[in-house]
């Protein structure tokens, strides 16, 4: 039977670290090369069946939609905003008008939940203005908390020219 070393000292087992370090560095290189810093994105959900307005039967309980007209200048920038035919100075005022119309409550069966906003934007208007308008009517941020307003949003059919 083989006898262990009689020196009494414990043997130091040396592990070859080189392959592991190679693999670890290759993994790190892979992650570094494939890393894509992406800004967080979110959605505004819209449900728009075709010709819903024409197909839907008139309902006495139904609240008429709030019509927001966004007009474009010659370069596609925002020229004017109007809510139900009344001029609005900017998106902050649009939000205040919406709060004045539906109230701050956005819970179940609230006026904000039932009300619908219809956007009528000029064809050439830059899309960024529409997103600002949707943001203005859909809610506000108060003390870091999102207060929801109107969730039902639709667009008028596109009008070219």
């Amino acid at each position, binding site marked *: 039977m083989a006898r262990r070393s009689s020196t009494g000292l414990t043997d130091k087992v040396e592990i070859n*670290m080189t392959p*592991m*370090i190679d693999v*670890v*560095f290759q*993994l*790190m290189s892979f*992650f*570094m090369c*494939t*890393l*894509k*810093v*992406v*800004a*967080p*994105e*979110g*959605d*505004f*959900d*819209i*449900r*728009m*069946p*075709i010709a819903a307005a024409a197909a839907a039967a008139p309902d006495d309980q139904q609240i008429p939609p709030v019509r927001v007209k*966004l007009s*474009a200048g010659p370069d*596609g920038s925002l020229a004017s905003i109007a809510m139900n035919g009344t001029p609005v100075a900017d998106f902050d005022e649009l939000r205040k008008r919406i709060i004045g119309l539906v109230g701050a409550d956005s819970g179940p069966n609230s006026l904000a939940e039932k009300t619908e906003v219809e956007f009528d*934007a*000029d*064809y*050439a*208007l*830059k*899309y*960024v*203005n*529409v*997103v*600002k308008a*949707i*943001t203005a009517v*859909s*809610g506000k*941020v108060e003390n*870091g908390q*999102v207060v929801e307003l109107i969730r039902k949003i639709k*667009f008028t*059919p*596109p*009008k*070219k020219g």
Partner: protein
Amino acid sequence: MAKRSGGPSNTEIDMTPMIDMTFQLITFFMFVMNFSEAEQDDRIQLPSSQLAKPADGVIEKPITLQLTNAGAVIYAGELVAVRDIGAYLEREKTLMIDENREPNSATIIVRADGRAKTGEVQDIIRICQEKGFERFALRAQYDDRR
């Protein structure tokens, strides 16, 4: 003067801190890596919004249409004119029907450039509606500035 040892010295480098740091780096990269298969094209400059919060759940099998500043649609990696997307959506619709799914259950993600014309976004929505799609997600960049 001190004299150096004549024989080759066996200097052992302590590798532990380096391995620790490397593993921490790998862990960091694994966490920040984006494994989602969401289509995001760098050519699109999304408009930003404080209310465009990332969705809680994953949208199941969405169709992503990305509208560039020049008015072209990026669909499945290729550039298509807005008026031509109908044919592609028809194909998607056929595939969905084959899978026993209704087109109105699918979500169309619209990633439109902030400088694109609103009318072109509306054109995309109208073509989708004509093909039976009715759920849309207008995508915007989440702006967390307070």
